[in-house]
């Protein structure tokens, strides 16, 4: 294969080498390797218990992997292994360049703090100390995720499920992260709300040039959002490829089963 000399080669944003996590004798995920390039959205699909959430939590530093390396292209020092970073550095990444959208908004939001405060928290955590600025940034982001600004001082407990999820997204994106981890972002929402959320997510990801890793069992979600797909079974990656390629022409028996199992309306 010849390299196109005109396209400058961009280093991957995230490089994962042989990531393994065991729960005692059981496997969480095993020997996972992949590259994620800037602006790329990667989907991870598989059935419950296939290790996709374990993998995501290991990547985001919320779980400690047993072996392997997760190289992240930091703004300051270039690629660094996040597993060898100090907890302080990892937390700093977690509130600047990384974002994590939980399946259940209650895990990602502070339910007793107003919507504005929820959005502002990350800003304040990285040193914003001007109330007016924080408030206008929060207002801006609430508008972007289609939450009326007069709901800004309401607590998330008074929001519907879809609004809570949108608020969680605003709260995560306010510091302009480069990599977003999403764990079943549309889980538990009804289909019309899901569709709007997907539309919003797709717009944001494209406009901000975000890289994202989306874990889901919903193939429709990855079809809409993901550029590339990784199929997991029993903790291992069984198939990777472009989303359309994997979904339209599945090679591995398990992927074929997965694609064939989708209900048609």
């Amino acid at each position, binding site marked *: 294969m010849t390299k196109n000399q005109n396209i400058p080669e961009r280093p991957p944003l995230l490089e994962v080498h042989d990531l393994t996590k065991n729960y005692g004798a059981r496997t969480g995920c095993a020997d996972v390797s992949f590259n994620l390039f800037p602006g790329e959205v990667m989907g991870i699909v598989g059935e419950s218990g296939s290790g996709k959430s374990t993998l995501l939590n290991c990547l985001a530093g919320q779980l400690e992997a047993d072996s392997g390396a997760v190289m992240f292209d930091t703004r300051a020092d270039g690629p660094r292994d996040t597993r060898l970073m100090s907890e302080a550095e990892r937390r700093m990444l977690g509130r600047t360049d990384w974002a994590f959208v939980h399946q259940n908004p209650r895990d990602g939001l502070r339910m007793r703090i107003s919507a504005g405060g929820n959005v502002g928290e990350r800003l304040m*955590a990285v040193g914003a100390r001007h109330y007016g600025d924080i408030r206008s940034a929060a207002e801006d982001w609430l508008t972007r995720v289609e939450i009326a600004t007069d709901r800004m001082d309401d607590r998330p407990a008074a929001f519907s499920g879809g609004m809570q999820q949108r608020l969680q997204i605003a709260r995560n994106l306010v510091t302009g992260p480069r990599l977003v981890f999403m764990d079943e972002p549309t889980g538990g929402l009804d289909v019309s709300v899901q569709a709007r959320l997907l539309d919003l997510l797709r717009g944001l990801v494209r406009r901000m040039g975000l890289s994202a890793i989306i874990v889901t069992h919903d193939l429709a979600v990855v079809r809409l959002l993901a550029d590339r797909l990784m199929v997991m079974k029993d903790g291992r990656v069984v198939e990777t490829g472009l989303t359309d390629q994997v979904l339209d022409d599945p090679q591995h028996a398990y992927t074929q089963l997965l694609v064939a199992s989708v209900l048609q309306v």
Partner: protein
Amino acid sequence: MSDYNFAYLDEQTKRMIRRAILKGVAVPGYQVPFASREMPMPYGWGTGGVQVSAACLTPEDVFKVIDQGADDTTNAVSIRKFFEKTAQVSVTEHTKDATVIQTRHRIPEVRLTEDQILVYQVPIPEPLRFLEPRETETRKMHALEDYGLMHVKLYEDIARHGEIATAYAYPVKVEDRYVMDPSPIPKFDNPKLESAALQLFGAGREQRIYAVPPYTKVVSLDFDDYPFDPSKADYPCALCGATESYLDEVIVDDSGGRMFVCSDTDFCAGRQEAAA
């Protein structure tokens, strides 16, 4: 009375507490865990302060106790009597004469000196407690200087009340490092935390000791556009006429009558004497 060891606690316990105090002084604002003892008083009445005082007192000390600024309320009188009985130290109500002052919820109006120790009674030492209930998590936040949450609380205050409505136990940052709860003193007293005296904080139930050494930098948290404001009631004291002291509001009858008087009784009495 010879049945008690000097200042009630046995010498080993006092050593243990002094070690915690020294560590607290070495790391200003850091909460040092210590093996708090059962004291002959209920939790919440100053068991932490009493233990710190007991570890600090020497037979030559002159001891003063303040409760909400007053020397003559139940808590102050009983703790003062306790050490009169168990340590036979001399006691005083005059801030200037005292070498060890145990206080609940106030800092004396008179400027303290290098020869004095101020001991605070602390109910909840953890400034992040009501924002993050997990102790493991708050310790980690202190270790990593992860203090964004503290400002979220102030943000919520402004969003809801139009100003920072926290009026007591106002969070401070000590020596640009640890965020500390100055115990429930009114925020009016916060500027006085930068003092010539050694300040020790004891929380008996929560088993924590922390300290602010003399001349340590103590900054009250705020926003650039909502700066810290050490407010007080906008009246002069009805008894001594002081305009610069912290005031208590006293209801005097059933028809809405009220007066504002100095909360620091020694300060007020001193001014009345000087005027007479």
